[in-house]
């Protein structure tokens, strides 16, 4: 049974999706999708345990029994297992959110369609995370994208339609760029299997085609990841999608794209090409820093809470890509990889906090009927538990010690200092201060401004509070138990670096 866990991760949501269409009843569908997500969480947990016992080796699963050169292979190492756990974890919390309440998941009476798209989106994300085949990544990417366009268009405002349309155009251009890139790689190496590609690329590494292929792939993934100049689709898509969708996509879709970027950099093209030959870090670092500031500053000026945190996501993605650039290398020798660990651990931490924040906003929309910050007066008194969760998530976004946000920033600053980038370390701290401003905006309106009419308590239903507080508990727990996530992220970083041809020794922590 446990040997089939990798394929079950993809197959479970894929089969669960059409069954949603048969169930039709809203509550039944919600329970069914939740069960599917929980099953996947169990599989992901099993895989993580299995991978950690393998000591740097990876699980290789021949899909359908077709061995590697012919068939498609699923390949899981520490990095995938971590990403898979994040996706299933977020899905397990977001799917049962508001279990007994309708109206949260798309238009009334269309809940079975909503959850079918939700499960397909999850299936695609799982597929991207576990597959070892380059073309397969494209196919799953399109499954994810197509279902997320549909999900975003189910937002209550008609602007959701235009947001979905713009995302569709941008996403398809990105997806097609990835396809062109894969085509060039295939023309160079004659294989689609990532391990084989990595083996054969060094012999053609000086060909201009390699650089073109890399350019197309990075640009395509960059659009999906929303790195600095390519983020235009994100604010509208996040603000107009149903809150549940935003919570899920913010926690998973960009994270998986970040994982694909890591795979591309380390497992496929290798450190010698990316860092020593092309010097990608010299371009990516300024872009990440600009993203951190532009995202945070734009967030400060928003009046819509969802849009505010959408811009904050762009800043947080900046932290993650910054982690890659902070890798301290001497040729192929790794001197320090704390920055990369920070990037990977931020993947987990940001998923927890952002999903939590968007779920909190979903509660506010459900009870107070507004996403405009100015209308959230008395939020703290009307919904004290929700507000308390918001404070925890807000502190975590800022990076206050004792929350997960601190852990990733700590690693990033360590990496920056070890690499001698003192200015970057200072900028990381400075951009955290900007986060204080935009989180404070909501706290100020919610806690210090009282509405003129008498305040009645309208706490969010328990089925909404439990998922939120699970995430917040995780945000505090992993803020103290840093060796858990930090340890896994470090193993993941080490695995990626080894795959990228790095040499360890001397100077590593």
């Amino acid at each position, binding site marked *: 049974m446990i040997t089939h866990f990798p394929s079950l991760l993809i197959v479970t949501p894929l089969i669960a999706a059409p069954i949603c269409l048969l169930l039709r009843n809203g509550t039944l569908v919600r329970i069914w999708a939740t069960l599917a997500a929980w099953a996947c969480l169990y599989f992901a947990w099993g895989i993580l345990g299995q991978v950690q016992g393998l000591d740097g080796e990876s699980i290789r699963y021949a899909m359908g029994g077709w061995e590697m050169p012919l068939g498609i292979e699923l390949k899981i190492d520490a990095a995938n297992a971590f990403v898979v756990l994040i996706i299933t974890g977020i899905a397990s919390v977001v799917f049962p959110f508001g279990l007994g309440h309708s109206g949260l998941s798309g238009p009334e009476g269309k809940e079975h369609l909503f959850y079918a798209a939700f499960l397909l989106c999850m299936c695609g994300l799982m597929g991207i995370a576990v597959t070892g085949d380059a*073309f397969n990544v*494209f*196919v799953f990417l*399109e499954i994810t994208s*197509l279902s997320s*366009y*549909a999900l975003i*268009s189910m937002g209550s405002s*008609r*602007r959701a*339609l*235009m947001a*979905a*349309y713009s995302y*569709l*155009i941008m996403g*398809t*251009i990105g*997806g*097609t760029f990835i*396809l*062109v890139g894969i*085509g060039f790689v*295939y*023309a160079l190496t004659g294989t*689609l299997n990532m391990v084989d590609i990595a083996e054969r690329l060094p012999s053609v590494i000086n060909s201009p085609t390699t650089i073109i292929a890399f350019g197309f792939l990075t640009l395509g993934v960059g659009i999906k990841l929303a790195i600095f100049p390519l983020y*235009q689709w994100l*604010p*509208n898509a996040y603000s107009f999608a149903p809150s549940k969708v935003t919570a899920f996509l913010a926690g998973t879709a960009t994270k998986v794209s970040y994982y694909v970027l890591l795979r591309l950099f380390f497992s496929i093209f290798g450190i010698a090409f990316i860092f020593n030959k092309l010097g990608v870090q010299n371009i990516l670092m300024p872009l990440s820093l600009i993203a951190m500031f532009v995202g945070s500053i734009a967030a400060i000026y928003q009046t819509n809470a969802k849009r505010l945190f959408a811009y904050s996501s762009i800043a947080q993605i900046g932290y993650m890509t910054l982690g890659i650039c902070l890798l301290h290398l001497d040729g192929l020798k790794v001197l320090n990889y704390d920055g990369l660990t920070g990037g990977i651990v931020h993947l987990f931490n940001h998923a927890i906090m952002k999903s939590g924040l968007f779920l909190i906003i979903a509660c506010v929309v459900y009870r107070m009927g507004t996403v405009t910050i100015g209308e959230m007066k008395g939020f703290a008194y009307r919904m004290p538990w929700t507000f308390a969760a918001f404070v925890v998530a807000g502190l975590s976004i800022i990076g206050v010690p004792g929350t997960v946000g601190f852990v990733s920033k700590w690693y990033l600053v360590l990496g920056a200092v070890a690499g001698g980038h003192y200015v970057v370390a200072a900028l990381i701290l400075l951009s955290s201060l900007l986060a204080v401003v935009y989180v404070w905006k909501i706290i100020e309106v919610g806690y210090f401004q009282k509405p003129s009419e008498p305040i009645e308590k309208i706490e969010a239903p328990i089925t909404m509070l439990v998922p939120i507080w699970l995430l917040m508990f995780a945000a505090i727990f992993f803020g103290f138990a840093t060796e858990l996530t930090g340890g896994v992220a470090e193993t993941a970083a080490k695995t990626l670096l080894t795959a990228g041809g790095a040499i360890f020794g001397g100077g590593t922590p």
Partner: protein
Amino acid sequence: MIALNEIPTEYGLWHYWVVVSLMMLGLYIVIARDNLIKRIMGLNIFQASVIMFYVAMGKVQGGEAPIWPLDTMEGHYQDRVFSNPVPHVLMLTAIVVGIATTALALALVVRIKESYGTIEEDEIREIDGSIS
């Protein structure tokens, strides 16, 4: 088939020029047009260029369709040239993805037309006030 073999090698890259021209044409339409349907058409041209890129990549000069005919069973296949089927098969998937995307995009445009009464992006922007 013979005609293809007679193309001198110095023209051997012409299909890449076709692909690149179509790709840029498609991308230009997507960026420059305000009409939502026209942008989808641009997107389709863009995707079609990639399909042609793959198909051209798999084509071997003088190669036949890689079908296993009976006479090759007796060992005659060594002197026969086959095109590479893998890129062609990959494009079957890409075509399906393209159709799904187009269908979804058109469905969205129908809904946009229903709620805004127009499919010109600049007019929609005006109706909504300034987005972003």
